[in-house]
């Protein structure tokens, strides 16, 4: 009997030794696996082929002489603090000279129904390359990464934008903005 008690106590000690002050802290959260293949970060030009993106070859053939960006909207679902989401914009230079484009995070001018303006810290959660150079008539992938700290508190679904603007325009300039809709888990 004494031996049984000692064994029980030892077993309990072993179990408690594997725990922190909170039992749930025993578990290390599993790695998030996105449904698309993600390249290594930081952005490296020779990984462009691996970057997830969308395209419509037939539509793009008709728009070869125009500057454009796709997609117009990215939907990120089942997202949560600590997760990482990556997707690529595609920036096309329809001109005959090398184009330098500024890629930036921006707050929405308006949001889709059901989505709120981004939290104040959202700008620090989004990584964009800043500047991308595109040769004439060519298209470049631009990786956008969303990574929210594990301890971030977010209420409900929200939205942010990214803008792409060609440098060298006059004092009346244009840019395009992609919507990023974040649906929280």
């Amino acid at each position, binding site marked *: 009997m004494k031996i049984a008690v000692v064994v029980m106590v030892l077993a309990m000690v072993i179990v408690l030794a594997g725990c922190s002050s909170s039992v*749930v802290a025993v578990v290390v959260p599993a790695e998030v696996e996105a449904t698309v293949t993600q390249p290594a970060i930081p952005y490296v030009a020779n990984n462009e082929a691996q970057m997830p993106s969308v395209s419509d070859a037939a539509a793009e053939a008709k728009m070869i002489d125009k500057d454009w*960006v796709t997609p117009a909207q990215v939907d990120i679902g089942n997202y949560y603090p600590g997760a990482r989401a990556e997707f690529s914009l595609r920036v096309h230079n329809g001109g005959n000279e090398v184009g330098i484009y500024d890629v930036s995070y921006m707050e929405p*001018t308006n949001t889709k129904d059901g989505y709120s303006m981004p939290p104040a810290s959202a700008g620090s959660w989004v990584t964009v390359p800043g500047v991308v150079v595109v040769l004439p008539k060519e298209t470049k992938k631009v990786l956008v990464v969303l990574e929210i700290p594990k301890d971030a508190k977010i209420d409900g679904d929200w939205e942010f934008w990214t803008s792409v603007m060609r440098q060298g325009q006059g*004092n*009346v300039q*244009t840019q*395009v*903005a992609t919507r990023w809709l974040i649906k929280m888990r």
Partner: protein
Amino acid sequence: MKRILFTLLAILGLVLVQAIPAYATTTADVTITATPEYLAITNDTGNWTIGAIAEAFTVYFTADTLVPAEPLADGDMKGTLTNTGSVTSDINIKCANFTGGVGWTMSADETPAANEVNLRAGITGMATLAAMVQVTNADIELKDSIIAAGTIMWCMILETGTFTDGVGKSGVTTLTISKHV
């Protein structure tokens, strides 16, 4: 002894019961979806050069540099904005504060104060000059729901306040196109 053993077993059971739910946590998949919709815009008037301007003076970014008639019509507009993308879109407009010397701040109303300018933008179809949008540092909608290949013709009016210096000024107006939702 039995009581001690029972107590130990109960404690051990409680510990294990609390641990099991944590070990049951599963991998969560973040989903990312997108459709190949294309955003693009052209503007056929990329510059507005004003030259020397007086205090409390108004200049017009219009076809004939004069005040447009009411309602605003194509013939008076300065330029054309085209949605050259594939998706129905909205166009917003903003203007950064002017730089140079003490600078000019964008006025929030139609009465610019010292070192302020009142900038307004309008499109064909607006009933009056008062219906033109007030352009500031923050984006404001100029036109929504422009279909693919759709166009709008537009103009601007700039009114100065008073000046505290005579240094040249430069401002940049930005038109942003985004998907209409």
